[in-house]
């Protein structure tokens, strides 16, 4: 049953994914201008443009074009980047891990700081720690990630230089070889502890800059949901039976409040995938962003479509994971699933 509901979610995600591919395809093809001309630039000859139009089926009707696009997609072919002159999938495989590592570490920071901050606010509702927590959360939400990047760089990279401000590793540190492309994991897998710490050292500032907005949102949601839960009869029962206030805050009121919070965290993850572009630019992070911005500026059609699709897919996968997690945490859903 839990398998069945998961399959249904995957099915729904696939429909949305097809929708996204149509949307991005439509944007790419319907926009004014000849995509082949845009892609090749003003110096290309008419023959070159015509050749590209033929190669990309640009003279066919839109449905035919879309069908060709889907056919290629089903073979795992996202086309060729005119910028790098390599298959788009190769480019993405090279740049995606750095972005994902950054986003995953940010998501961990977001949860590890945002949840306690929200719990603290709810527990001390209306008192000084609450005001402080809400202020931190609010400033987190209201500040774009690149502003955090610049501020963190300025203070912890220049004025008090305790963190590096660029790249994933020192130039002297050998790049860890491994299957994941996550330096933290690959370095540990090969037993290279100094590389691990160097990679971590480089990750902290950008990950924090990227986490701030989601962290604030997490704290705000946790606080709001916990305050709802504090009004429930079972919390009164827990107080009437002498449960310690700290234990109620961190356990008995937290878990029911965490279920609705978790479903929203998926959206925060999406925002992070987007904001990663900003943070990567600030910290010279060699991820998908540099590539993405570059291909956008160069009107590199296939590469743009591919990048957007991959990011959308990452978001949808994350949402499915969140849904499954919610099912496991919420006993009503878990038990209903177990029965069937």
């Amino acid at each position: 049953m839990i398998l069945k509901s998961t399959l249904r979610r995957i099915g729904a995600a696939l429909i949305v994914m097809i929708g996204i591919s149509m949307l991005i395809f439509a944007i790419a093809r319907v926009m004014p201008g000849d995509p082949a001309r845009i892609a090749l630039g003003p110096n290309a000859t008419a023959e070159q443009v015509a050749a590209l139009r033929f190669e990309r089926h640009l003279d066919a009707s839109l449905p035919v074009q879309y069908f060709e696009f889907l056919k290629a997609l089903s073979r795992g072919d996202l086309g060729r980047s005119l910028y790098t002159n390599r298959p788009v999938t190769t480019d993405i495989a090279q740049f995606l891990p750095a972005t994902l590592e950054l986003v995953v570490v940010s998501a961990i920071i977001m949860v590890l700081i945002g949840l306690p901050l929200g719990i603290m606010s709810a527990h001390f509702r209306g008192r000084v720690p609450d005001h402080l927590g809400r202020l931190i959360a609010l400033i987190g939400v209201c500040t774009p990630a690149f502003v955090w990047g610049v501020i963190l760089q300025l203070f912890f990279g220049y004025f008090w230089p305790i963190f590096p401000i660029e790249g994933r590793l020192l130039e002297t540190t050998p790049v860890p070889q491994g299957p994941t492309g996550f330096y933290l994991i690959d370095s540990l897998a090969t037993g290279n502890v100094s590389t691990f710490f160097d990679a971590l050292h480089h990750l902290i500032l950008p990950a924090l800059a990227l986490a701030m907005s989601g962290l604030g949102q997490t704290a705000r949601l946790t606080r709001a949901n916990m305050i709802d839960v504090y009004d429930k009869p079972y919390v009164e029962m827990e107080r009437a039976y002498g449960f310690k206030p700290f234990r109620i805050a961190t356990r008995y009121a937290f878990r029911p409040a965490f279920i609705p919070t978790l479903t929203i965290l998926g959206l925060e993850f999406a925002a992070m995938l987007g904001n990663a572009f900003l943070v990567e630019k600030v910290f010279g992070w060699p991820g998908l962003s540099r590539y993405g911005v570059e291909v956008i500026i160069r009107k590199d059609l296939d590469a743009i479509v591919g990048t957007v699709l991959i990011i959308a897919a990452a978001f949808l996968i994350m949402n499915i994971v969140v849904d499954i997690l919610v099912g496991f945490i919420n006993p009503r859903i878990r038990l209903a699933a177990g029965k069937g």
Partner: protein
Amino acid sequence: MSEPGSPVLPKRGGSKAVAAYFGNPLSVGGLLIVVVIVMLAALADYVTPFPDHVGPIGDFAAMNTGPGETYKLGTDTMGRDLFTRIIFGYRLSLIMAVVVLAIATPIGVIVGLVAGYKGGWTDYVLMRLTDVFLAVPPLVLAMAIMGFLEPTLMNGMLAITAMWWPWYARLIYNVTRAEAQEGYVLAAETVGASTAHILFREILPNCWPSILTKMTLDVGFVILMASSLSFLGLGVQPPTPDLGSMVADGAKYMPDAWWLSLWPAIAILLVVLGFNLVGDGLREAFEAEG
């Protein structure tokens, strides 16, 4: 509730909401920030010390000077007064936000109303379409749209509008779904009111508090999004003053010319914070009014 003998008070009251709003110092502070910024931006030509620094040319004798007597916040690499450019940047940001919301909100509201009220296939198609937009990180979608367009002010607004309406569709859809079951809607249906009447005269008025609250919050968030785009070089092009590009340009001269990035960065934070505080205050005020 209005007192019978007081013709001055409007019928629907609102005094509770006003009291709730002004009872919260944070909401008042937010309003203050917003009013000051809007006034400065509106009167930018008169209140800024160097209005001609909006263009590409500044005071070349004073390039890259730190905060001081003449240039309170310092100058940029062209010798242009940062304070002046930040205020003009505010003007541009506010215009963008207003235009984007003026287009995105009605689209989203209509989609949400129709999908929520009609149900069935209309609902399914419209809301799946909304889901598609919501499943791409907003910044990435706006970037992709910008990728096929020239980076101009108009196109920037277009890109942001295209990714903004689904949020209103989602919000109004949920409200409409709940309201459609209410007695007053059923009553209107029984007397044969037209769909348009029910949507815009019966249901929509109940959505106004949520719409106004969200729009206020969103002025800040549209500015945030626009500055993010221009930070990536996908927004307004120089020499037009733009907060996001100012941060990006200044970052190249860190840490020596720290003021280049820091002031516009704080300027963005302030305006988003201001509109957020006002939005939160409005939400509480509407809740207090009930």
